[in-house]
């Protein structure tokens, strides 16, 4: 692993090089990039690396980076860099090379100087955060995106049902959400495997997929039983399948896992998807369960404990705050639905206060925010941290709940969720302090591509 300290005289608190496994090659790149970009773009002396002779000694290394297409290289100068990986940097520079974050440099005293650089690859902005990640994005809502010929389609991958031409992806991207967990719609008890995809790029799975099989999607409550009726006479369609009640939903859920356990020891009882359920019980695939109301959250927690499912979160868990003891005991994660001003959220009439996130934080519960893919500007993910802060949550915890927390929950924190060297260059550029009602997302960088340019009127 490359170390800045050994190669330069830069103090560790000015250069963030959080070690992430498998990033040795990035380390070399970052040196090249810093040397190349900082010396190239006439960064003020107080921001420059300080080590005399650095420019000269590394200029040869810098050549390959300089040879890459101009569009693949950015230098972002910001008054505030909120990395979600430590203390914020006042006055920071982020170097982006070939779609990755190549260097992050902070100036503890702040950067008062204004560069008069007219380099088109240098962007100045007030604040930068990591691209936001939405685990409950609900961009896939069409009922044809989930296989309803069975109520536990656990082996089905939603990735084959995605419509990357849907305008919702771009809407999320431009509002600062750079990756989402795409889950099947909740018409089944278990609708199949979710995947993490970027919200921009070429409209094909290959270009957008970050992680396949990132979670198994389940759903409690009324949605998976909605429209179902007991069979009368000859069944004519899939609405006559079980379950018609919450009890039926829970029964399907439990039966599936018991069958998977039985299949482990008896090959004759094996069935399609048993391997997925077994992987969930081993903790290799997390489980994401929609559960808005108290009784559904309790059911999810009881199932987590019964089948010893290591990684599970309740999605849209409006009323999770009502069961603090169970949350702590079960170590279940929580993804909030969008907050509302009267507290009423969701079709089932859940109640959620602004203070709920602060309570989760104090309990040590792992939680994340979601915008549910809404068209409503006021309900998007970028607005959720501010509402939680209104309820008492501190800024850093609010930031993490929109970035690194969801990245960790979905197992993509090796690439996404924070501003660290070697991670994907998915960045949100803000006009002011992030999340504040007076601040706006003015720029978005995705995979190193400037998809929303703060220098242009939008």
């Amino acid at each position, binding site marked *: 692993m490359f170390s800045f300290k050994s190669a330069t005289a830069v103090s560790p608190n000015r250069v963030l090089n959080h070690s992430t496994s498998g990033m040795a090659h990035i380390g070399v790149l970052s040196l090249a990039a810093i040397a190349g970009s900082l010396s190239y773009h006439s960064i003020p002396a107080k921001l420059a690396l300080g080590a005399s002779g650095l420019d000269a000694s590394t200029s040869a290394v810098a050549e390959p980076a300089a040879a890459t297409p101009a569009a693949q290289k950015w230098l972002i100068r910001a008054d505030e860099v909120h990395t979600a990986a430590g203390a914020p940097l006042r006055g920071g520079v982020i170097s982006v090379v070939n779609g990755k974050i190549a260097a992050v440099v902070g100036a503890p005293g702040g950067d008062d100087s204004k560069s008069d650089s007219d380099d088109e690859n240098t962007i100045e902005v007030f604040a930068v955060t990591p691209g936001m990640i939405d685990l409950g994005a609900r961009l896939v809502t069409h*009922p*044809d*995106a*989930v*296989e*309803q*010929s*069975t109520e536990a*389609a656990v082996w*089905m*991958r*939603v*990735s*084959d*049902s*995605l*419509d*990357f*031409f*849907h305008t919702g992806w771009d809407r999320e991207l431009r509002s600062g959400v750079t990756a989402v967990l795409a889950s*099947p719609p909740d018409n089944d008890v278990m609708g*199949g495997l979710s995947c993490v995809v970027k919200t921009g790029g070429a*409209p*094909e*799975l290959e270009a957008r997929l970050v992680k396949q099989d990132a979670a198994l999607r389940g759903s409690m409550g009324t949605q998976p039983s909605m429209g179902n009726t007991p069979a009368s006479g000859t069944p*004519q*369609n*899939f*609405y006559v399948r079980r379950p018609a009640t919450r009890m039926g939903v829970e029964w399907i859920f439990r039966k599936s896992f018991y069958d998977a356990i039985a299949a482990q020891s008896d090959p004759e009882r094996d069935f399609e998807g048993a391997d997925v359920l077994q992987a969930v019980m081993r903790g290799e695939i997390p489980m994401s369960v929609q559960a808005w109301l108290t009784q559904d959250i309790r059911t999810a927690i009881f199932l987590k404990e019964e089948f010893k499912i290591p990684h599970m979160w309740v999605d849209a868990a409006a009323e999770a705050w009502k069961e603090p003891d169970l949350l702590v005991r079960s170590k279940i994660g929580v993804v909030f639905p969008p907050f509302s001003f009267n507290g009423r959220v969701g079709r089932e009439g859940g109640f959620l206060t602004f203070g709920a996130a602060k309570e989760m934080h104090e309990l040590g519960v792992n939680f994340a925010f979601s915008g549910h893919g809404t068209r409503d500007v006021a309900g998007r993910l970028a607005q959720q941290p501010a509402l939680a802060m209104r309820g008492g949550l501190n800024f850093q915890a609010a930031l993490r709940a929109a970035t690194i927390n969801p990245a960790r929950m979905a197992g993509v924190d090796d690439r996404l969720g924070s501003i660290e060297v070697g991670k994907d260059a998915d960045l949100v550029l803000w006009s002011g302090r992030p999340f504040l009602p007076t601040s706006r997302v003015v720029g978005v960088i995705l995979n190193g591509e400037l998809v929303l340019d703060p220098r242009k009127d939008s």
Partner: protein
Amino acid sequence: MIAEIALVALATVVPGGSNTNEPSTRVRVQSADFALKADKIFIGPHEVIENGMLVVEEGKIRAVGADIDIASTIPVFEHEGWLSAGLVASHSQSGGRSEVTDGTRAALPAAKLVHAFNPDHSDFEKARRSGITTMLLAPDGSDVIAGVTAVVKTGGGQVLSDSAHLGISMQTRALHYDRAPTSWGGLVEFLQAEFDAGLGNVGEAQAGRLPVLIEAWERHEVSRALAFATKNKLSGAIRGATRAGEQSDAMSASGMAAIVGPFRPGSDLRALKSVVLLEKAGVPLAFGVDAPGNSPDSMRLSSALCLREGLSRVAAWSAMTSTAADLLGVEKRVGRLERGRDADFVLWSGDPLELSSRVLSVWIDGAQVHGGQQ
């Protein structure tokens, strides 16, 4: 049949060419059933023969060109207008509407559309009236694998091909609420399982002996269809492809053709522009008419609307004739005015690409099947 003909000018005997010292480009025809002289023979937009002649023998084109010597015994008819190849419509359910998709199961690859073909149905008379002499009978897209398409003549009951494509649907319409698959992802999985088993006509498609015709209209459906075709090394055409011009890289990389339309006034402009983009990307194009739900006349209207948005005249014409014949696997029989091909042709009042031109008479296998009355 010949006796029934009532053309503009009848039976003008042309002096037989007896001079053997003519240049070698001059074609000599000693025997034929009849010949037709037209002011303009429209081979294609870049090839219009002035005062050309078409010679028909035993239902086939014996010769076509400007310099043809024919024996004096051969009757010659004159047409003061244009003559072109008969049109080829690449997608219809004519004469079988409710019979073209069985619907009892999601996959019925052994079903053959040819058995739904009723040659005497009035749908074909309408097609002939529009200058269409060859038609693809294809499923309506409501089943995942609905069977094997057929290519038929619109007159005379002839079947050109009873195994033109394996008809597949990856459009939303193939998803039902009373049988699996019910979802886009489920459809891909279901289809892949059928191909993994590779039985019967599915195996033929897999082996490259039977092209596929995949219904996919929305862009995400087209994405899935192209991925499936590429993964399973299939060749054939995408039926629908409404805005596939916006995915033209993927389309051309897949090698799949596009069967587009029908279009009408008010059709999404993006769909028309998409056709132009597909041409630029080199994707072979043909028009579907979806008769009898749509008028067969919609094919010429579709080509005119695409022309208006920038489609080349060559592409607009070949989409109704030669390229269509290629996609239907009957290019050796129809789609071009060339020696040896079926004598399927249309006499027009003017340029066939102009909507103001009328179909005056239609001929299939050298026999008149429509028009002729002035």
